[in-house]
């Protein structure tokens, strides 16, 4: 419900911009939305890195949950913009899909990070992972193997590809297994 209202709201703003200012062309709207999408993706990365700076201990659990929620909220905003772009354009650039997918991958990893056996969180992680893969199906280079447009630092380790991050952060291959169990292999 919340998501729908927010999505509708974004669409409303875009529509207002579109109709109220004739000089403000479609391309400009698209470019400002893209900027915003990149900005929010940046926030997703920021939250993810900040969260990784916390050690895993019972004392940090509440904070990690709060970071997880914050990252989810930023990801929802990336997805809203993506959906708005799909509405105003006949076809969507691969770049937008890639941005949305990257945010979803990180959301899945974050959910997994805080899950600690919580079924809801694990389910949500699986759904995000599946949605991310579905979004980028048919990409020339798989999103997971693409070099990231930014650096992700966790401790002393630098990640330049999501695949490396997934290998390290999802050591039990939970996300891979959830793909298998949903029959999407």
């Amino acid at each position: 419900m919340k998501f729908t209202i927010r999505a509708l709201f974004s669409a409303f703003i875009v529509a207002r911009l579109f109709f109220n200012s004739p000089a403000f062309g479609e391309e400009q709207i698209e470019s400002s939305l893209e900027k915003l999408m990149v900005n929010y993706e940046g926030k997703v990365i920021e939250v993810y890195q900040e969260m990784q700076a916390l050690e895993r201990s019972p004392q940090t659990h509440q904070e990690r949950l709060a970071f997880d929620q914050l990252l989810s909220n930023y990801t929802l905003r990336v997805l809203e913009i993506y959906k708005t772009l799909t509405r105003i354009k006949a076809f969507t650039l691969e770049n937008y899909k890639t941005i949305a997918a990257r945010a979803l991958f990180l959301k899945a990893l974050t959910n997994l990070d805080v899950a600690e056996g919580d079924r809801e969180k694990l389910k949500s992680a699986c759904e995000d992972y599946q949605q991310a893969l579905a979004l980028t199906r048919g990409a020339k280079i798989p999103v997971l193997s693409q070099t990231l447009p930014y650096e992700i630092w966790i401790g002393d380790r630098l990640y330049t590809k999501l695949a490396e991050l997934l290998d390290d952060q999802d050591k039990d291959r939970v996300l891979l297994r959830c793909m298998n169990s949903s029959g999407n292999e």
Partner: protein
Amino acid sequence: MKKTSLLLAVFLVTAGITDAVHAQKVADLFEQTKAAYEANNSKQTVDLCRQIIQQCEQSYAEAECRYTNVMKNVYLYKGLSEYKIYTEEQDLDLLTEAIASLQQSYELYGDPNVTFNFGYMQTQRAIKMQNGNELEGLVASWDGILSMYANQEWTLDDELLKNLKIFVKQAVELTVTPADSAMTTGRFASFMVRQACDLAEQGHLNQEDRLFFDVYRKRAIEDNYNLRGNEWRARGFAAEEEFIQNPDDYSYRKTRTNLELALRFSKSIERQVEMLKELTKVALHMEKNSSDRLAETELVYAREKAAQAYNLLVERRPNITIDLENEIKKVYGNSIFRMVDYYFSLADSTDRLNAYYKARRVGEELLLPDRKGGWKQKFKWDGYEELYLRLADVGYETGDEAFAVDMIDKAWKAALHSAKLSQTNLCSDVTIDKASNLVLFVDVYQQIANRFGLQTVLHWLRPIRKCLVSRMNVSTNRHE
């Protein structure tokens, strides 16, 4: 039979009244609710909202119950009125009710203002309940702020800026809740403050607002993102300022508590030594300014904190400025000097020798063998000559010739060093102020030399004293 008919009549009349009450339509009730809410009649608003909700829960609810625009406002009015009553009565149950009502309103219609408000209330409840790890409120109010920002087409207005400031203050308050134990690492609160500052910087801030966000950004970043420790430090300094103006017991306790918390939650050695130094300073200030307290307690405390700071300085070599290092040395030296002086002054009223030996033992904490059979202070500090002088007094009083002579000799040399004078050109270079200070050292030196029969010393001291006194007399004559 007659009785039964009467009962039936009473029942029918009662039922008729009840029906009449129930018959009041939701639309009418809503109008009344709106009027009560606008008239700031919180209790009546809550009652009316409850009636509407109750009526809407019935199987055949009226159409208004299905209108989002009506029901979102019913829950909104209820929540805001419950919150108003809470602020008057401070009943936490009411706050919980208010949060639930606003959440219901948000579920019906995702108004970002409502998210911000219930997030704010959740954090307020967490603070009130001393539950520093309840962070959902911050997440919710931040979500509200971001949505409001989007509503305004990504521009900042005064209202949003006000909300950002409220958000920052709440995040800070939550991270220092409870005061005496840390339930989180504080990293999340620090991150949220930084996020708020980033967003605020997107707008045109006036000078006051810019200062506000600059201060809190700094507080969220310094000492490895130690918002909690930095906040206690800031509160400690603010309390200290007040304490310096008005050194009473309350402001002293407040300052000490805040600074001790800043010390407890500090992350770096640099911060630890700074807080230890500050604690020493306030304890010494308290001892100096209070007449009705036992000075010894504060002096012992000051000495302990200063010694801890100095030991960290020597053992851990923190990356601090020369100024801070000098200040640490000064407060350590000063706390030792004051304690020596305190025990020395006790000699008049208590067991004399015992007091002198106590004073000496304290003073020896700062002394090291100087490889010439004597003693020297571990480090030079602003005022180190005074400690030598007082220890020379102790040596004189206890009849320890070697110690007294060693100390007064070092005191004299230290006094010349501090005054940036050399003994050879003393007479020509000394100013009036310096002369009156140096003469004190010469007097003690002469006293010691007399007691222990040091003729050579007396020989070279005599012209020095004469010169210093004549310099002082010049000033006296001039003033006359």
